[in-house]
């Protein structure tokens, strides 16, 4: 390795050519009945970034995430104000079709939740409901998605078996593959590893970092080291507010807000 290449590798990676904002949240407020769960959220989430959301229990992390694909609407008492723009379009008005949004914005949940079907059917489910019927194309999609989710090798011989026969970590990667199968732009992940053992957790983390090449990823996590390990930018939520949103390294090394520092160093409460 010549000296000059070293020098280059040392200087920080240059910023991406186009720093597109994929989700632009402006003055978002959200109430569950009387509970004011999100307060004046302003967050601009960049494309092809891994954005982590951390914060204590009940601070509104999951709520925010579920607002991004409007899953939060499944709770009937929810009201919102403010605006979220997905690639420039407001998604919060009723005219915007949620099913459409959700094909663009995939979601992976805390507990692995494969369908009680075969591995193959799990992955093919999304394409099928969106109208792909051709068996050959489906086969291709399934294989590609499973490969992209780093799980192809482990399941290729058991595609017809029930997904519940897989281990927890494999199930979670299967769920990620299922999401990849509909080729979303954004993948939301709500504590995707909190139900997994440490080994599976690491595998999923590596997968997430790999997916960054092609997807924008927003991940909620209780595990600060995880946020530190895998994300580019981190938002710290507290009581429904965004306290700090910065490059992960800055936030974890040198946070601006004392509350952030207290939280990440475990001095909270």
């Amino acid at each position, binding site marked *: 390795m010549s000296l000059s290449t070293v020098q280059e590798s040392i200087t920080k990676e240059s910023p991406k050519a186009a720093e597109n904002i994929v989700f632009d949240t402006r003055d978002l407020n959200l109430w569950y009945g009387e509970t004011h769960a999100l307060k004046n959220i302003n967050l601009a989430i960049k494309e092809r970034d891994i954005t982590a959301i951390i914060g204590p229990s009940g601070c509104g992390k999951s709520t925010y995430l579920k607002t991004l*694909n409007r*899953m939060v609407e*499944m709770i*009937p008492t929810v009201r919102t104000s403010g605006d979220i723009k997905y690639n420039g379009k407001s998604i919060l008005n009723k005219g915007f079709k949620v*099913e*459409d*949004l*959700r*094909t663009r914005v*995939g*979601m992976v*949940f805390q*507990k692995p*939740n*494969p*369908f*009680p*079907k075969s591995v193959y059917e799990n992955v093919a*489910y*999304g394409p*099928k*409901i*969106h109208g792909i019927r051709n068996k050959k194309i489906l086969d291709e999609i399934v294989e590609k998605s499973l490969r992209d989710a780093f799980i192809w090798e482990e399941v290729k011989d058991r595609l017809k078996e*029930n997904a*519940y026969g897989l281990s927890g970590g494999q199930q979670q990667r299967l*769920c990620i593959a*299922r*999401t990849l199968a*509909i080729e979303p732009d954004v993948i939301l992940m709500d504590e995707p590893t909190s139900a997994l053992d440490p080994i599976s957790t690491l595998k999923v983390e590596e997968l997430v970092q790999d997916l960054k090449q092609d997807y924008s990823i927003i991940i909620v996590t209780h595990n600060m080291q995880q946020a530190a390990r895998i994300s580019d930018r981190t938002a710290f939520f507290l009581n429904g507010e965004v306290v700090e949103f910065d490059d992960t390294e800055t936030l974890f090394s040198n946070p601006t807000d004392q509350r952030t520092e207290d939280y990440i160093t475990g001095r909270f409460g």
Partner: protein
Amino acid sequence: MTTNSESNQNTVPVREMIEEKKKSRNLSSVTEKLVPTILFLFAMISILTTIGIIWTLFSETVEFFKRVSMTEFFTGTELNPLSQNPDFGILPLLNGTIMSSVIAMLVAGPIGIMAAIYLSEYASDRVRRVLKPMLEVLAGVPTIVYGFFAFTFVTPIIRSIWPEVGATNILSPGIVMGIMIIPMIASLSEDAMSSVPNSIREGAFALGATRLESTFKVVIPAALSGIIASFILGISRAIGETMIVTIASGSSKNFTFDLTQSMQTMTAYIVEVAGGEAPAGSTIYFSLYAVAMTLFVFTLIMNLLARYVSRKFREEY
């Protein structure tokens, strides 16, 4: 903290007290031994009940078959137990039973499952909390009331629409039985569907599925065993139902597939024969047991089948 532990140190000699009380524990050890025995005896009562049922039915049925051949009983299409030359073919009864059950299931099956889908998938919590108990009230209405309703209300309505229908017929009790079974199927299917974890539904929604798609492609397949089991139990219930058919379907022992006709089910036959105080010793008397045995075996098979299905196809989430 230290002050606490100091100040409280040994104020209450819990350990010594416990050690002391231990000596007086013998009484409780007697209880410990006695209780399981008593409870076991209680548990035996249900076994005795089964033995009682089977023994009763079986011994008298054996007596019946000494008088009437099995072939006649199971293949005879004539049932005239009281005539001078009595016939003891059970087929008319089986026919009535099956007809009424099929009609009932044609009503209860689709409506029940649709109601289950609505309650489990579409209704908000509040709506479900109101609707489900109301629906269950339907199941709590005594069957005699349904019988009264079928005979005095549903039949006349059917006849005004379809005059061919007899004043006693199998259609009306079949339909009312179906209505009675709706809540059973709705409730059991709804339970099966509700026990499909929400996370799986969310998984489907997150892929852009509509509610209908998540229901038919994910929830129902996952809950299928429970739904099938609910159908089988519904059939079993229809087969065993007595009062509605007794009142509304008359007592003609017709062997026909004509819905408009009066037919008799196995259960109604039992009521008829038992009448007030069934006369012991006659062939008719024994036929009652033979029919009851057949009924029992039928429902037993259904129940075992339902259990098997819900076991065999149960998904682990």
